[in-house]
């Protein structure tokens, strides 16, 4: 069965490395913070100016001066620090943040990502996404494999205006875990539980390398 958003978040949480700084985008990526594996210590950065972001506050303990990049009220963990926007993006551009997880509308087989603009529709802006994808050492995209019309979002070439070029390393969808190969093209690494290779191939427009037996994702809480 294809994963839901929580399943995608749980699978991405397995990618977290011990003692690293991680920036989580809005949407599915935010959920990853709820499933950090035991024994793994990570610190979450939010680009509006906090390292050491904690969970949502309890009722009546919210502070209008303490929010994340999605403008949601949050808390700060022990060891947290606040900083200005220029310093925040110095951390990002200077590659002090090891992993960025973000959502996308389209990803292409050379690692391009489009997630900020649909021509003809209201343009809300790129926020920090262009800075994040241009600089992060490691970028994992969290998204559904197809759009609402059932069309593949894993493409030979993006059709929407780009956010960044050649930057995505891995994609985790409701159907599969895919790696972007250095020479271009996707490699199928894992299948969602009960999803066949054929189903993944059918939902993938880009070239997809299927090498040997593809294991199912193991999702533990």
């Amino acid at each position: 069965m294809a994963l839901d958003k929580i399943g995608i978040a749980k699978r991405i949480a397995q990618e977290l490395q011990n003692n690293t700084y991680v920036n989580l985008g809005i949407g599915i990526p935010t959920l990853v913070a709820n499933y950090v594996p035991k024994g793994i210590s990570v610190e979450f950065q939010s680009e509006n100016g906090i390292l050491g972001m904690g969970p949502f506050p309890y009722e009546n303990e919210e502070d209008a001066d303490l929010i994340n990049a999605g403008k949601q009220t949050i808390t700060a963990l022990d060891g947290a620090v606040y900083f200005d926007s220029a310093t925040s993006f110095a951390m990002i551009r200077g590659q002090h943040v090891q992993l960025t997880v973000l959502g996308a509308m389209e990803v292409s087989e050379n690692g391009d990502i489009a997630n900020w603009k649909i021509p003809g529709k209201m343009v809300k802006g790129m926020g920090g996404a262009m800075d994040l994808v241009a600089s992060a050492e490691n970028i994992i995209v969290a998204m559904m494999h197809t759009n609402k019309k059932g069309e593949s979002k894993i493409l030979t070439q993006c059709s929407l205006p780009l956010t960044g070029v050649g930057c995505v390393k891995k994609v985790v969808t409701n159907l599969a875990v895919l790696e972007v190969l250095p020479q271009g093209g996707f490699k199928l690494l894992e299948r969602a539980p009960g999803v066949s290779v054929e189903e993944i191939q059918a939902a993938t427009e880009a070239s997809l390398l299927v090498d040997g037996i593809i294991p199912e994702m193991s999702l533990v809480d």
Partner: protein
Amino acid sequence: MINKVVPNVQEALVGVKDGMTLMLGGFGLCGIPENSIAELVKKRTKNLTCISNNAGVDNFGLGLLLQEKQIKKMISSYVGENDEFERQMLSGELEVDLIPQGSLAERCRAGGAGIPAFYTPAGYGTEVAEGKEVREFNGKPHILESALTADFAIVKAWKGDTAGNLIFKATAKNFNPTMAMAGTITVAEVEELVPAGQLNPNEIHTPGIFVQRIFQGERFEKKIEQLTIRKK
């Protein structure tokens, strides 16, 4: 000590004229100079170019200036959550320049630091790079971005002293210290104004040299855009 105190928001904004460029601190509705924005609405200053990460919501923040059609151009990184903004943008009444958030912050910082331009990888290969010089450093392409300055930078701090030194609270810091550096005149509205000597110099975020006018805001509503809580 050079005394930077002005008695009220009216005095703080003397000289703000039609057609000027303003920088306004804040991220969403967090850390915005709400007293100054309310005064700009009262002053009916028009044709403003506003440099601010966001454009407020319909009934708060810069949304109040948009409602009164006082803004000619917005320079921002993200402008969702605002129906009037969308209407004005789609009808062509409002010019909008969207800039990657890190480039926006660094352009303000550069403006305050006397650096006319810098190269950044953000936006390379996208429409943000159109018309901009591209240069390769360490095998990676970068684009040239220029500094931003403003006639007035209007920021909000938690505490300030009579010398103009500022301390910000939590993530209400955001663009405020960066923009404070880049105004020809920088106005700081603070929740608590204390005599010089009462803030610990070790704990000051923005040195008073960047601030020309400081006043204690009359009222801070501090609206929350997305209230998210967890159960006990």
